[in-house]
């Protein structure tokens, strides 16, 4: 039996008692994972925009410096926007955590291997880009450490979580982007945000 972490256990643990944590989910499995943990007004799951999840997190983190922002995304999605690691590291947002659920696969398209299955070290790249903290997460104890760091807001934090390339039933969030945007803004900024 695989000793790898299970992605939905990891996400559920990171989001338990989440308080006012702001969460971006990269397209595909991470969007299903955050919805599996419980659909939430302060979730912004992506249905597209591949390569953009980390940058969305940066814009949000800069706009809301007092709130913690967590981007949960996949290895394929992160690989498409590697330049964002440099852009984020330069801005030094202490309240931003990028957590890559790395199953070494493009899960939505037939489980083809990504670069990380062939040695690409995403945490190493984040470190070289200048992230204040980088972590490789492989065990349950590592997950607990990661959770503490996310909620401590001592970033910018980048974590590469090695997870089982299991096939799981999809858990779909609403897919109307305007609804997702407006409910997030209303929950974060108050109902007046809808009149701006």
């Amino acid at each position, binding site marked *: 039996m695989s000793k790898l972490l299970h992605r939905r256990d990891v996400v559920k643990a990171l989001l338990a008692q989440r308080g006012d944590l*702001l969460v*971006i989910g990269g397209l595909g499995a991470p969007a299903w994972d955050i919805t599996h943990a419980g659909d939430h007004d302060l979730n*912004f799951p*992506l*249905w*597209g*925009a*591949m*390569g*953009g*999840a980390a*940058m*969305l*997190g*940066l*814009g*949000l*983190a*800069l*706009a*809301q410096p007092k709130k913690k922002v967590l981007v949960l995304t996949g290895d394929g999605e992160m690989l498409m*926007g590697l*330049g*964002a690691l*440099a*852009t984020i590291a*330069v*801005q030094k947002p202490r309240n931003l955590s990028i957590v890559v659920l790395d199953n070494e696969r493009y899960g939505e398209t037939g489980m083809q291997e990504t670069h990380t299955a062939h040695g690409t070290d995403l945490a190493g790249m984040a470190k070289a880009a200048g992230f204040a903290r980088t972590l490789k997460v492989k065990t349950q104890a590592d997950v607990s450490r990661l959770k503490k760091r996310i909620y401590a807001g001592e970033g910018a934090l980048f974590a590469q979580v090695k997870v089982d390339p299991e096939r799981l039933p999809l858990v779909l969030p609403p897919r109307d*982007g*305007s609804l*997702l*945007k407006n409910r*997030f*803004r209303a929950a*974060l*900024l108050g109902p007046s*945000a809808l009149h701006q």
Partner: protein
Amino acid sequence: MKKTAESAWPDEVHALLKAAGVRQVAIVPDAGHARLIKLCEKDKAMRVVRLTTEEEGVALLAGAWLGGEKGVLLMQSSGVGNCINMLTLPIACQFPLLMLVAMRGDFGEFNPAQIPMGNAMQAVLEALGVIVKRADAAKDVTEMVSGAMRLAFNTYRPVALLVGQRVLGAKDFRKLTQSVPQ
């Protein structure tokens, strides 16, 4: 010395953006935006975010809006090509997005490599559903930025204002082989 229309627009546009509460300024530089970038960098109310590629700015500013901040994306026309797929995010989710695009491959261009994107860009943006406006005279830039900004933030959609090469002046590569500008 009083500034002429040719030189005043970057200062006016900076003041306009500031008054509208624009806080995040995402850039991949173009020579045509050089003065505006400098003004934004000096402004403590603004955060200049250097991008490695323009589509990062599209995603950044969607995140900014989620968090209650306005932004602007400054880029060269060639960078529009890099943004195409990411623009589906503000279109599908109705995020406001203000893009100020300094044209290349336009009036008096020297470099053949700039032509394909410079020429195709407006049609490509419009095919996606981005609203495109153009300023081809320095005296019009500020007013056009003002209109584009209101369109973007009042109607929740991406709007590109193209600042023509006739305003910015075509780069003279032959002259640059003779001397380095100071």
